[in-house]
């Protein structure tokens, strides 16, 4: 996962390499948007829930792409943010995490097709927490998962329905996702770097 400090780029070691450029990300988002529409046979009942911090801007981008195919669709009406902090299984073992707001679309999620959106799929524990969080918020008809990068090393029986890029990694490597909405202008890329 990409919970790195803000100044991570400044500290990035020499061995870092870009695996998805800004243009690559754009193309991947467009493809996933189409996959979602196809899997859903349209845009009916779609809700995109981004997992903070970088899942939410990805969900926004996806919603815009989806809305581009359906002029009747208001992209802001189908997206939401799902905070999973309180559902994590590692609350006692890392430094204290501060929860951020959960915001659901006005339509709610009951009976909807919810697409969870996150940047990196790794152990699967975040998604497990997200599924529990969703269960406390309502009862969607279907829950799907879209991620920008799947780097492997799953620890739970969880898989993504829509993957931007499958990225074989070593556990010693770090995958950093930079999105302009979170990380600032001209900061749009996925980096993989080896750690000491």
């Amino acid at each position, binding site marked *: 996962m990409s919970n790195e400090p803000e100044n991570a780029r400044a500290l990035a070691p020499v061995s870092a390499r870009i695996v998805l450029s800004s243009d690559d990300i754009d193309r991947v988002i467009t493809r996933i948007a189409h996959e979602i529409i196809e899997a859903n046979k349209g845009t009916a009942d779609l809700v995109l829930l981004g997992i903070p911090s970088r899942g939410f801007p990805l969900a926004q981008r996806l919603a815009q792409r989806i809305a581009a195919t359906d002029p009747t669709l208001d992209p802001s009406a189908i997206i939401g943010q799902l905070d999973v902090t*309180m*559902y994590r299984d590692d*609350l006692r073992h890392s*430094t*204290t995490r*501060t929860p951020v*707001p*959960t915001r659901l679309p006005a339509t709610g999620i009951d009976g909807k097709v919810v697409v969870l959106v996150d940047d990196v799929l790794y152990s699967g524990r975040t998604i497990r927490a997200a599924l*529990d969080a969703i269960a406390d*918020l309502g009862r969607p008809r279907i829950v799907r998962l879209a991620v920008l990068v799947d780097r492997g090393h799953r620890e739970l029986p969880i898989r993504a329905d829509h993957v931007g890029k499958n990225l074989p990694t070593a556990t010693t490597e770090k995958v950093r996702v930079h999105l302009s909405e979170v990380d600032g202008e001209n900061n749009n890329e996925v980096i993989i770097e080896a750690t000491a």
Partner: protein
Amino acid sequence: MKHLLSTLDLSREDAIRILDIAEEMAAVGTREVKKLPALRGRTVVNLFFEDSTRTRISFEAAAKRLSADVINFSAKGSSVSKGESLKDTAQTLQAIGADAVVIRHGASGAPARLAATDWIDAPVVNAGDGTHEHPTQALLDAYTLRTHWAATHGNSALGSDLAGMRVAIVGDILHSRVARSNLWLLRTLGAEVIMVAPPTLLPHGSHAWPCTISYDLDATLAGGVDAVMMLRVQGERMHDSFFPNTREYSRLWGFDDARLAALDAQPGSETIIMHPGPMNRGLEISSAAADSPRSTVLAQVANGVAVRMAVLYLLLSGDQQRPAGL
């Protein structure tokens, strides 16, 4: 933050973090499933040496909404009333496996004592100690004030403080842990505080406090305040000559109908009336004031659960062996 013992030693950063997390916790209270799994498997002990049903059920609701197990330990009718010491009680809770202790005690400093000794390792939350402090009450009051202040300015409350606010705290300051906790916290958050009380009910030494002291409630209200916090006054205090009788007290320092009318007559006044409860209607606050749209009494109760959830979450999550990010 290992314990929450007082607001005097609470930093601005910590205070705002608690209030911000409480915002998220409050949202849970509006959901159908009013429960989060964050403290599943953890045990919170409510250790109450003084009766306080309101505070106890607020902490109980907070712990349960975070899925913690709650043990209520009331001193009455327990071994404590048979002379068991605080030390033995604490060691018993340690042996039972308490993960956090919420303590209400009649002796000032009892929570600090639990935290400082090796009688028990668990985080300690002060739920009111003697006439010292009641930090979660001050936090819920600050939360209530912040909500009001942000709404009046059309801002988001998240991350904000109380800079520019003027708050009057009125009544028995001498015996009030609520007044002390509010003073320190409101000052930390940038508010201005005016303490209003008869001179007999102000502690000797309060001249050094970072607030204005007034004996005149009407002048204070006329000067313009954004909130007025009425403290509970025990009528029995008149037997110790703190004031002649309840009638005179109420006339000079109670929030009565006349003062409510005067406030309503101020153009554009959005002053809120707060009370930590339980209220003595007719003594320090009139029914009209307590039930007026300005009153935040019930909002304070609701906010209390959210703030206490935030405190329990912060104390019980994170690696307690490592210095927390707080």
